[in-house]
């Protein structure tokens, strides 16, 4: 076996440039696979984390009849006296924050430009609202007793040409089915680096939201943030599920999970295309090698080397190319993934309905993806050697010996 690899190694060394470029093609293929896998994984992970942070939390407790799609403001569909329930939940050990939120739909208009928005009535002091508070790019965050203040996203402020201190008119649906409108002063502008969210979501204090929507002492949901996603089941067990509907982050992010599965299947096709292109380079290299060494194959056959061993010789060459290519590919892919993990790719406002995509996609490479793609690349490279190896093994010794004469 050692002799086989020694011969294979030297054979590759005969045409170093060709061998190097073949290994490089393999390396680039693997690097591209790693980058694609890491980007898709990062995008999905980012979308999920972002959605949990901004939209769903880890758990939400809602009134049994609450319909999320209708953003109902009827008292029967809301939680009464939400602070008391939130305080009980917040007392649970794995809970970071449990805070009431009131959701309403409305229209922000300024300078005769109306934009439909989701209104979040929030408790400004809650830890659950840190993503907005920490993302302030201008002005100040809300205070609980602010009766005229509103915080809008940077994307919306850019769209409407608004700045801190400007006044906007907010038209809101109320619990009675009417609409009400009031002027609000922009206290601050936030960014979550998620343009789709920032453009469509405005924040006002919960008390003000309850007042304007006529939903006194009611909230749409108790928004719960946990220390760890893994604690979800434990906290869920402690919640009053019989009186309320309780949704976990998994239930609230079904679309992201489905999209991830779809992306996995979709990306497999791209992986396959890259691997086929890479394999073609290897097949080409080895076929050239077979034709260049036809007489040598005849010599080896004449001195008694069987077809299986001749095939093994080409598989050994292919595996050496694979090892070289994979090592280079891991380095090259590692550098690309490192860059994409650290700096990300800017995608801007590429909204997907139901998903909260950030303006940058950050790669996230897992060990299992690295191992599986490396193994797949190795196996595909070996498979690529099958045809050239068969070609060599099936040569008739007499014809092979007289080739080129």
């Amino acid at each position, binding site marked *: 076996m050692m002799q086989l690899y020694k011969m294979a190694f030297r054979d590759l060394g005969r045409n170093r440039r060709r061998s190097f470029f073949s290994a490089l093609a393999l390396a680039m293929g693997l690097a591209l696979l790693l980058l694609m896998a890491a980007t898709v994984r990062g995008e999905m992970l980012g979308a999920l984390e972002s959605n949990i942070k901004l939209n769903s939390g880890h758990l939400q407790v809602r009134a049994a009849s609450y319909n999320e799609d209708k953003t109902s403001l009827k008292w029967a569909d809301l939680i009464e006296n939400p602070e008391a329930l939130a305080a009980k939940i917040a007392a649970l050990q794995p809970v970071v924050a449990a805070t009431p939120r009131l959701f309403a739909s409305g229209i922000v208009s300024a300078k005769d430009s109306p934009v439909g928005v989701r209104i979040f009535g929030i408790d400004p002091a809650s830890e659950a609202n840190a993503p907005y508070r920490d993302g302030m790019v201008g002005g100040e965050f809300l205070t609980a007793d602010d009766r005229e203040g509103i915080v809008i996203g940077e994307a919306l402020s850019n769209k409407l040409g608004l700045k801190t201190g400007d006044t906007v008119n907010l038209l809101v649906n109320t619990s009675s089915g009417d609409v009400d409108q009031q002027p609000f002063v922009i206290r601050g502008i936030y960014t979550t680096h998620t343009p789709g969210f920032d453009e469509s979501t405005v924040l006002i204090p919960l008390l003000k939201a309850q007042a304007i929507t006529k939903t006194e002492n009611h909230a749409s949901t108790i928004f719960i943030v946990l220390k760890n996603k893994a604690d979800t089941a434990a906290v869920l067990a402690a919640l009053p599920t019989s009186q309320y509907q309780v949704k976990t982050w998994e239930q609230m992010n079904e679309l992201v999970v489905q999209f991830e599965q779809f992306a996995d299947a979709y990306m497999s096709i791209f992986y396959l295309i890259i691997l086929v292109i890479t394999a073609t380079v290897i097949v080409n290299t080895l076929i050239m090698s077979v034709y260049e060494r036809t007489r040598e194959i005849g*010599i080896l056959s004449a*001195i008694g080397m069987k*077809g299986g061993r001749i095939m093994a010789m080409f598989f050994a060459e292919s595996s050496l190319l694979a090892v070289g290519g994979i090592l280079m590919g891991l380095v090259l892919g590692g550098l690309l993934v490192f860059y994409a993990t650290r700096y990300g790719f800017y995608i801007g406002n590429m909204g997907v309905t139901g998903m909260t995509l950030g303006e940058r996609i950050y790669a996230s490479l897992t060990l299992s993806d690295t191992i599986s793609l490396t193994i797949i690349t190795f196996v595909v490279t070996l498979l690529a050697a099958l045809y050239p190896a068969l070609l060599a093994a099936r040569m008739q010794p007499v014809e092979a*010996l007289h080739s080129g004469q």
Partner: protein
Amino acid sequence: MEVTKIENVTRTFKIGKVETQALRGVNLLIENGEFTALVGPSGSGKTTLLQLIGCLDQPTSGRVYINGKDISKLNRNQRADMRRGTIGFIFQFFALIPTLTAYENVEIPLLLVGQGSAERHERITKLLEAVDLADRAHHRPDQLSGGEQQRVAIARALATQPALILADEPTANLDTANGKQVMEIMTRLNQETGVTFVFATHDPRVIHYARRVVTLRDGLIVQNGNGDQAPLPGEKYEI
């Protein structure tokens, strides 16, 4: 005892729609320890006959026996086994693997028969000494002269101690001095080891080394005698 027996062998090659009969019914018996030359002009069937004896090819009709075994019907792998254990080859174009050293080239057949490392080393050293190449063992073919390469090929052919060594025009690509040296080594090894040599040649300088000369013409053996029938060195060989 006979090493090879050839009975009514024909070999027809078909190229496109044209059939060429390279051998037209050859009968030949080669005994153990012979040093036999197959002579004849180009196209007479020398190389085809060597290929059939060497299990590299199969006859269209007739039978070829090696050590009493009919090899005409052997499959590809069985023929490879026969070549590996029983037959050594020396080719006109030296036929060494260019990426391997002289030592490693001689080692290949020993690796194929699964000989152990120490035994292998001893055998290779002995063989390279026998062909006066002990000091060139770790040179690659492109660092060796044509004569040296052919001597490595002789050492490789002898490696597994075969019953029969077949040489196809072994001196055709060598100058007179190297051709002489190669033939002298082959003669010496034949005498010392008793291994049978059959070589095809149309080089009049080397025919006199043969103790038996088999002459072919148009695919038939036209003369089958001892080496005395061959012309002396320097004389033109006439068919």
